[in-house]
C-alpha cells in the first residue's frame, strides 16, 4: 500500500480532519425536539423600530435586531414598499427591487447635488487604479468611448441637416 503520509508530507495537516463517522456531514438536521417548539424559543428583547423597516411578508414580526441604514425614501422607496407586499417567491418582489436600486442611484446623485457635492464619477470608479496598473486598457477604453461618441454625434448631426 502506498505510504500516503510521505506522499503528502509537503501539505501541512493532510488528512488531519478525516472523520469517517461524520456522514452525512454539515449542514444536516440536528434533531433536538426544539424544532417542534416552533417560534416559542427564548427570544432577545425587541430592538425599537426607529426608522421604517420593510419586512418580508413570510414572517409575522420583525426580527429581534435589524439594520437601520438607508431607510426607504423617494420613488425607489415607494417601489420597494410595493415589492415587499409580495413574497420572496415572486418575481414581482425581486424585479421591482432591482428597478428601485437603479432609481436609487439617480436619487443619490440628486441628494449629492442638493448638499452641494458634485460626485466625482471617475474617482468613485477608482480610475486611478486603472491609470496605475492598466494604463493601456484604460486608454483603449477611453478611445473606444470617444470613437463611439463621435460616430453618434456625426449620425445625429447628419440627420438634422
Amino acid at each position, binding site marked *: 500500500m502506498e505510504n500516503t503520509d510521505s506522499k503528502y508530507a509537503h*501539505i501541512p495537516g493532510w488528512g488531519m480532519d478525516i472523520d469517517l463517522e461524520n456522514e452525512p456531514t454539515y449542514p444536516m438536521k440536528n434533531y433536538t425536539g426544539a424544532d417542534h417548539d416552533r417560534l416559542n424559543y427564548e*427570544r432577545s428583547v425587541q430592538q425599537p423600530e426607529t426608522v421604517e423597516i420593510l419586512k418580508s411578508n413570510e414572517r409575522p414580526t420583525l426580527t429581534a435586531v435589524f*439594520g437601520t441604514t438607508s431607510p426607504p425614501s423617494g420613488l425607489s422607496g415607494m417601489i420597494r414598499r410595493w415589492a415587499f407586499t409580495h413574497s420572496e417567491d415572486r418575481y414581482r418582489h425581486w424585479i421591482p427591487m432591482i428597478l428601485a436600486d437603479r432609481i436609487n442611484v439617480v436619487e443619490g446623485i440628486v441628494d449629492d447635488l442638493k448638499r452641494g457635492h458634485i460626485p*466625482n464619477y471617475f474617482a*468613485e470608479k477608482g480610475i486611478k487604479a486603472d491609470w496605475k496598473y492598466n494604463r493601456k486598457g484604460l486608454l483603449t477604453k477611453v478611445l473606444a468611448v470617444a470613437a463611439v461618441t463621435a460616430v453618434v454625434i456625426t449620425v445625429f448631426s447628419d440627420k438634422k441637416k
Partner: protein
Amino acid sequence: MLAMNYRGPYRVRVDHKPYPEILHPEDAIVRVTRSCICGSDLHLYHGMVPDTRVGQTFGHEFTGIVEEVGPMVQKLKVGDHVLVPFNIACGKCTFCKQGLFGNCHESNPMATAVGGIFGYSHTAGGYDGGQAEYVRVPYADVGPTVIPPDMDPDDAVLLTDVVPTGYQAAEMGGIKPGDTVVVFGAGPIGIMAARCAWFFGPARVIIIDHVEYRLEFARNYAKCEAYNFKSLEDPVVFLKKTTDWLGADVCIDAVGCEAEGNTMQTFTGRVALLQAGSGTALQWAINSVKKGGIVSIVGVYGPPYNMIPIGNVVNKGITIRANQASVKRLLPRLIEHVQAGRLDPKGLITHRIPLQEISEAYNIFSSKLDNCIKTVLIP
C-alpha cells in the same frame, strides 16, 4: 467617522458618516482594526444583489476593538480585540441551536431565506458593515470572538469569512480519503477551499479558473493542480477524462453568480438578468461530479432563480450541500489549525490599502489588477 459609501454599481467612495449607536441592549460598538473586501462584496459592487441601497457601507470581514457595549452584554468588555463572524446570529433560535449560525431567524426581517450579514444589502438585513472606522455589532455575546494574544491580526481577519467558508466548502463535500476534489473558482474562497480540502485526506485536488495569475497562486498556496478552462476545449470532458471517465468524487462551486465560461449563462444571468446571475460553475460542478457524488456550494447566488441541470442531479443521484458558513461553529478548530501553523490565512493577502482609497481598492479587486488575490483595508 470615515466609512465606505455605496453610490451605485461600480461607484463607491469614503464619506463622513455618523458614529454608530447602540440600538439594542445586546449590541457593541467596535473600532475596526482590519477589514477586507470579499469576493461576494463584488456582487454588491456590480449591482447584482437586489435591495442594495445607496448610502450603505459594505464589509462583512473585520476585526476590531470593543469601544462600547450595551447593558445586556456579559462576555465582551471594552478593550477586547475581537474577530467578528460575517453572519449575525442570536444563538437562541431554532436554527442557531442546531449550529446553523448562518441561518439565524432573528437577524434579518427583510428576507427569510438568509440570516443577517454585515454590510450585505437589505436582502441580508440592512446593516452597515465594517469597511469603516466603527461598526455596530448586534448580539455581541454570540458572534465576536476574542483574538488569541499570539495570533497575527491578519490571520484573525481572514477567520471571519474566507477560512471558515473555504473549510466548510470542503467539509460539506464529505471528502473521503483517496477522493478527487474539484474546486471551481480560484478566488480567495476557492483557493482556501482547495487548501482546506487536504485536511480531509483526498488523493487529488484540482482547481479550475480562467485567470492565469490566480491559478499560479493556487498551485503554490494550495498545493493543488490548476487548470485554465479557456485552454480546455470542454472542462467537463477534461474532468471526466482525468478521473477515469467517471467524474470527480466531490465538486465545489466557489464562484457563484458571476461565473464566466458559458455564453448562454453569461447572457441570461449577467446581461439580461433573466436569472439570478450566471450558473456556469454550478452547471459544470453538477455535470463533472460522478454518479452518487457530492456537490458543495459556497458561491453566492442572488434571488430569485438560476438555470441549472437539475435533471442531471436526479439522474446521477447527486447530493447537493450548501450553506453560508457557520463561522462560530468552526472557529475553535480553525484557530487550532492556524496556531499550529497548518494554515496560513495571511498568505492570501496581496494588497493593504488605506480605507481612504476604497474606490481604487474595489477597482483593483474587481478588475483583477496588479495580480490581486485579497485586499485588506486599514482604517
